[in-house]
């Protein structure tokens, strides 16, 4: 079966992000097993959840002695930004509600930001390719992480990889003065909330800055 050109392009463009995903999920596998998660469970979690911050957050809560409810809540808060991204993406997805919801699972931060065409629509086929490249590396990285040669991702500074990518995407996004203002407001709001709100909430709250669009 021929691979659609946009899917192939998405796969190719997703490679640098997939490499970063691999390192991050490698550290997830190592951290999770060190916290007492059976190796199989860590890999299964990466395969069925595929949302890094939610995985780290929920395992951290369990490892600290928290209950199931707290762990799931922490994951939900971490993922809450995908609510806003999903609302934006929905109109670009064909099919009924369930089919669109399934397609929405391909959203990760970088695939969403880079698939945006700038007019409110998204290149969904490209997004699937981008996300697929990351998914494969995400699961593979976890599988290698659980058998764990101990690599301290933080000590190597590899945890700076993702914010660096996000920064590059951001700088490509803010071509006008008003969009710079939105970015600064979002960053300021998120930083102000970090000390007082549960992790995950600051990023969702920052997206509320876009509500200025309600004014004509």
């Amino acid at each position, binding site marked *: 079966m021929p691979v659609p050109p946009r899917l192939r392009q998405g796969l190719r463009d997703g490679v640098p992000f997939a490499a970063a995903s691999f390192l991050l999920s490698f550290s997830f596998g190592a951290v999770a097993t060190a916290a007492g998660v059976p190796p199989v*469970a860590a890999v299964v979690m990466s395969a069925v959840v595929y949302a890094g911050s939610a995985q780290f957050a929920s395992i951290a809560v369990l490892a600290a002695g928290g209950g199931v409810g707290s762990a799931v809540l922490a994951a939900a808060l971490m993922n809450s930004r995908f609510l806003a991204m999903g609302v934006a993406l929905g109109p670009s997805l064909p099919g009924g509600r369930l089919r669109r919801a399934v397609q929405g699972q391909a959203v990760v931060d970088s695939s969403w930001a880079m698939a945006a065409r700038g007019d409110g629509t998204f290149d969904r086929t490209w997004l699937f390719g981008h996300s697929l490249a990351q998914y494969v590396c995400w699961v593979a990285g976890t599988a290698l992480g659980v058998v764990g040669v101990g690599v301290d991702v933080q000590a190597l500074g590899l945890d700076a990889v993702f914010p660096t990518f996000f920064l590059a995407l951001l700088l490509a*996004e803010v071509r006008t003065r008003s969009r710079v203002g939105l970015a600064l407001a979002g960053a300021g709001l*998120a930083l102000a909330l970090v000390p007082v709100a549960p992790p995950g909430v600051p990023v969702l709250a920052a997206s509320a800055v*876009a509500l200025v669009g309600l004014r004509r």
Partner: protein
Amino acid sequence: MRHLWLTVALVALVTFVIKGLGPALFGPPTSSPSSSPESASPPSAAGVDGADRAGLPAPLARVVLLLAPPLLAALVVTNALADGDRLAVGADTLGVATAGVLVWRGLTVLPA
């Protein structure tokens, strides 16, 4: 670790719902009538207002266009500066700042 598998299952479920909710609620403006009982405005009105091209109500469509800058900026600063509920400048902060200057000056940090 107690209730681990239950947690994995619930986190997967919650993630599915959160990622799927937006697409389930807001479909394309021209989806087939059987699958889009949600369209609040008649299809004929969709093309009239230019801002409605994405199939969202016009005000929401304008909000969506403005989402990326604040979301990405928040991801950058929380990833680079937040450590749990503390703000801390670490090696990653400096790395991200350096990369930012490089990108801003038109140099690339992405392996292309």
